[in-house]
């Protein structure tokens, strides 16, 4: 492949990636609303599933990180927490902690 072709191919690839990608990443709210089908709207739960409402960002973040690493055993939360990066966990913890 000539240098010119390589550059063109690289540019096309970058354009494609930009097309598929999103600026700014997944927000805490986007993740937070997916939690509410189990934990209740705004994290206020009825029944056995724990409420997230009223917990501090620090509490939520450390719980989620412990589920992610396996340090803490849950029934389902280990499987869920592994779906998020540390930044996403921090963002969703902030989201719940800052609900009015």
């Amino acid at each position, binding site marked *: 492949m000539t240098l010119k072709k390589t550059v063109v191919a690289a540019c096309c690839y970058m354009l494609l990636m930009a097309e598929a*990608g999103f600026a700014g990443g997944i927000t805490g709210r986007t993740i937070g609303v997916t939690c509410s089908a189990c934990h209740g709207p705004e994290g206020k739960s009825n029944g056995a599933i724990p409420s997230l409402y009223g917990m501090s960002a620090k509490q939520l973040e450390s719980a989620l990180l412990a589920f992610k690493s396996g340090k803490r055993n849950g029934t389902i939360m280990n499987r*869920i927490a592994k779906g998020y990066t540390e930044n996403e966990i921090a963002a969703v913890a902030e989201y719940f902690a800052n609900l009015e």
Partner: protein
Amino acid sequence: MLTLSRRRFLQSLGASGLVLLSQRRGRAIYSRRRVVVIGGGFGGATAARYIREVDPWIEVTLVEPNKTYITCPASNWILGGLRDLDSITLGYKGLVKSGVKIVRDTVTAIDPHRREVRLKGGAILSYNRLIVSPGIDFRWNAIEGYNAQATQLAPHAWKAGAQTTLLRNQLLAMRDGGTVIITSPPDPYRCPPGPYERASLIAYYLKVHKPKSKVIILDAKTAFTKQELFTAGWEALYGFGTDNSMIEWVSGPDGEVTAMDAKAKLAIAGPLEEKYRGDVLNVIPPQKAGSIVQIAGLTDKSGWCPVAPATSESTLQRGVHVIGDASIQDPMPKSAYAASSQAKVCADAVVALLNDRTPGEPSWINTCYSLLNPEYGISIAEVFEINNQGMIQVVPGSGGLSPMNGNRALEAAYAKSWYTNIVRDSFGL
């Protein structure tokens, strides 16, 4: 011209749902953006409610022919005698409280070019964006002899309501020592673990009240979701794998039901056309997307609706979004949880598009709990993302099944709590 402060005010709203029609004589004329939602199940209700929550300037009208919605989740619990139908019958009061306008009517046509929806009652609703969440319909006569009429003798009970009651009453009337036949459909279908939860909870009812009876599942599939958890539970609770098992699973080519006779409660399966005669016959037929999307040209050859993953916008008709069971959003399953998660992503995308913003990066969860008896629960869960190719995928390393040595009683309690919470979240009840 807009004064600077007014413009700033409108910008500060971020999501304003208003469109500037014209500016004349120093006065701006705005029109409210309109969203029509078709279908009042988990997908439609969640989308309608969340749009109003994010941007109360958008006018949302939900079209649904029924006054109430009877949930498919927890309808198997009724068959096991754990609940009654009233407890899973929901109204739309919570949506009205969110400012959603409910129109009780049936959609007869969608015109994506004029952006209009026609109703049986004669009204025409115009929209800026349309969200369609029609659920499933059945492929009648895909099993020879199984049509709408046959459901009165051999219920499907795969849309909850009168069919659920009919199947429950047949179980109550059945003799001890009778056989219940469940035919499980080919993929893809609504609620992948549903047939196996159903077999479990019917076996639970029979074990308590009619212990000489059994359940036979006829299934062309050779594997199903949460299989190792179901079979471990069946072994522990219902003698699965022994001569006295209350549940028998006939799978693969032998389990493929080709024909049935509703009156005789007879299912014919396999290359040898083996006859299975039941006292109760529950046929869960092969499925396709709800009929309105078939009429509206939103389905592909598969009978389901292809959509763009980040927005749920149809790839066949612009301005129309399809969510829930009817849409193709693999690898997400056709479940209430997935429908509600898709509805939230779609609601955000619709609000963004109506405000000339680019939709944000989506994230979804699915969780499906199944009960094997009132104190024995199992689950599957996944987190989904959009990958670099723009396709939906399970976030690598996330998701999976309940651990084999997990706490079944706690998961059963969570299953019940989940049901209450998703109903509150989706319907505002």
